[in-house]
């Protein structure tokens, strides 16, 4: 069954080639949608296998671990691959109503599929250097998507995005070199065993900090997040939705993977730093959002503040906190991608994203209003939506170990989130359009291509919110695997260890 692990990777790559070859024809977008649907089927099947058999590993090219490249899927990897496929499928459909023909001719759909492949690869790999390669695949595709048909704004945002991400890449690479020098291996499972034998634990902490900086830039934590609000509001809406949903979460995933599996030698030091980083990320992100008045800029700063909650879950390192981090990760990707998709519809109906200069959506497009309220309230943590349970678990985890102040910050940031969402609601939806435009739904070309993915993701949010039990149980199993990696190590290295 282990060959199955490479399917979620091969499908988007093949789709990318087909979509690129068909970039001049109208069928390119259908290829992209069909490929994403196939990828979704493959990741559902992968999920079923992992749920059934536990951790699955495959050695590429028949080179035994730890020498070859290993693909490995535990519950966290499987759920991240699945959620990537869901978001990718939704955005591929949305792109039919969003991406212009000129962008298609430049190869939008091909780049989009390569991005999906890069993200999936990062979730599936069991090798640190291979993770670096997947990061680069993801980066170069995201660079292309970001500046495709770019005007001044996109180029300006793109420069900052490229510059800071390349620096993070170099930190990552240096960390890999030093870690290899220390342990002589780059396989995650092998590393987990070898780091315990190192005499120079101080140097290991230095290397851990290099990884924290590298992944911290990717995850956009305080004080390394500046590239995100500079770039995320500039590209087309389907691009910013897939970025907002997935890219920072790859950084969070890498942090969770490394700081539960490899760098758990000095939790008192590393995870205390993570705790401070998490709190500051939450606060700075939400305050930044309060100061913004552009639909997408507000949402961009909220990505940052929400990343804080996930890092908080990792920093606390208690079983419940890790459950919260995993649950939060899944819930957040769906909600955040959806909000950016809605921002796109709002822009096309009202003619802008600056919330003070638009309006009238509630009066003329009430259905969109409902669709906005679901992810917006979920982001803020209203019951009975998915965000409530995510926040509830994280706050409960802080209260359990009597960190009152951290719990207070987490709750206060939730309150501030409502403030920003209310601002969007009051300005873009409730008040009349200042220019007297009537933003009726009928004006939308390709209406269903845009509304179906939004509605689908909203239904998913409500579904998770109404039936949290199986999802929490799943997160509990996943957290148990993360905190006790013996299954993971056995699956990769075999029983010989």
């Amino acid at each position, binding site marked *: 069954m282990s060959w199955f692990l490479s399917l979620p990777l091969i499908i988007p790559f093949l789709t990318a080639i087909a979509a690129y070859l068909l970039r001049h024809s109208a069928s390119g977008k259908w290829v992209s949608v069909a490929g994403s649907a196939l990828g979704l089927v493959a990741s559902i099947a992968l999920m079923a296998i992992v749920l059934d058999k536990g951790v699955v590993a495959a050695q590429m090219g028949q080179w035994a671990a730890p020498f070859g490249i290993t693909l490995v899927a535990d519950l966290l990897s499987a759920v991240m691959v699945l959620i990537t496929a869901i978001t990718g499928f939704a955005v591929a459909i949305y792109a039919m109503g969003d991406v212009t023909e000129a962008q298609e001719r430049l190869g939008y759909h091909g780049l989009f599929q390569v991005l999906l492949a890069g993200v999936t690869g990062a979730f599936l790999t069991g090798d640190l250097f291979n993770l670096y390669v997947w990061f680069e695949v993801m980066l170069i595709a995201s660079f292309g998507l970001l500046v495709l048909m770019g005007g001044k704004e996109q*180029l300006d945002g*793109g420069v900052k995005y*490229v510059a800071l991400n390349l620096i993070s890449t170099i930190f990552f*690479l*240096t960390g890999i070199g030093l870690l*290899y*020098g220390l342990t002589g291996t780059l396989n995650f499972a092998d590393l987990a065993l070898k780091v315990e034998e190192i005499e120079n634990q101080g140097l290991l902490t230095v290397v851990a900090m290099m990884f924290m900086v590298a992944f911290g830039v990717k995850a956009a934590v305080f004080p390394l997040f500046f590239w995100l609000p500079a770039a995320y509001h500039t590209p087309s809406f389907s691009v910013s939705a897939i970025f907002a949903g997935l890219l920072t979460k790859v950084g969070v995933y890498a942090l969770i993977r490394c700081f539960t599996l490899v760098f758990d030698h000095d939790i008192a030091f590393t995870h205390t730093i993570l705790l401070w980083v998490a709190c500051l990320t939450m606060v700075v992100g939400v305050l930044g959002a309060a100061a913004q008045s552009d639909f997408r800029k507000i949402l961009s700063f909220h990505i940052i503040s929400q990343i804080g909650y996930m890092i908080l879950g990792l920093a606390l390192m208690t079983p419940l906190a890790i459950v919260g981090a995993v649950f939060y990760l899944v819930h957040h990707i769906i909600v955040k991608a959806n909000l950016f998709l809605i921002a796109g519809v709002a822009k096309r109906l009202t003619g802008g994203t600056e919330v003070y200069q638009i309006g009238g959506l509630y009066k003329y497009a009430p259905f969109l209003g409902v669709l906005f309220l679901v992810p917006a309230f979920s982001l803020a943590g209203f019951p009975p939506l998915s965000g409530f349970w995510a926040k509830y678990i994280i706050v409960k985890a802080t209260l359990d170990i009597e960190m009152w102040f951290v719990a207070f910050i987490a709750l206060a940031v939730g309150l501030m989130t409502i403030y920003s969402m209310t601002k969007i609601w009051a300005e873009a939806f409730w008040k009349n359009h200042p220019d007297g435009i009537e933003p009726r739904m009928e004006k939308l070309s390709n209406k269903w291509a845009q509304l179906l993915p939004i509605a689908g993701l909203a239904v998913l949010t409500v579904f998770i919110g109404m039936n949290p039990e199986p999802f929490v149980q799943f997160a509990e199993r996943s957290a148990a695997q993360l905190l006790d990696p013996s299954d993971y190590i056995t699956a990769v290295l075999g029983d010989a260890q």
Partner: protein
Amino acid sequence: MEQLLSLLIGVLVAASVYLMLARNLLRFLFGLILLSNAANLTIFVAGRLTPGAPPLIPDGVDAPVSEVANALPQALVLTAIVIGFGLFAFALVLAFRAYQSLGTLHTDEMRVAEPKEQK
């Protein structure tokens, strides 16, 4: 040899940080390529230096007989160089396009995506 290379890496990093602190995007990019080369050298040195011992296996044997150089760090460096080269080429073209369209490479003036607040 290790000490010498470590010094060289230090000099490269210092020079690249100096370049990257400049407010000119082109100088920043030159700093970036220096830094990525410093990272490549770090991997190389961290993999231990074994001069004059190519990783060759004599005829009729399955494994090298004496101590040989570790080929893996070199493979890693090679991959990193190729990837770094590709990304750097992209970054240069992006900087050129940004110069064409914004008319400047001075980072303080590149405020189109995040304009200053008008009071």
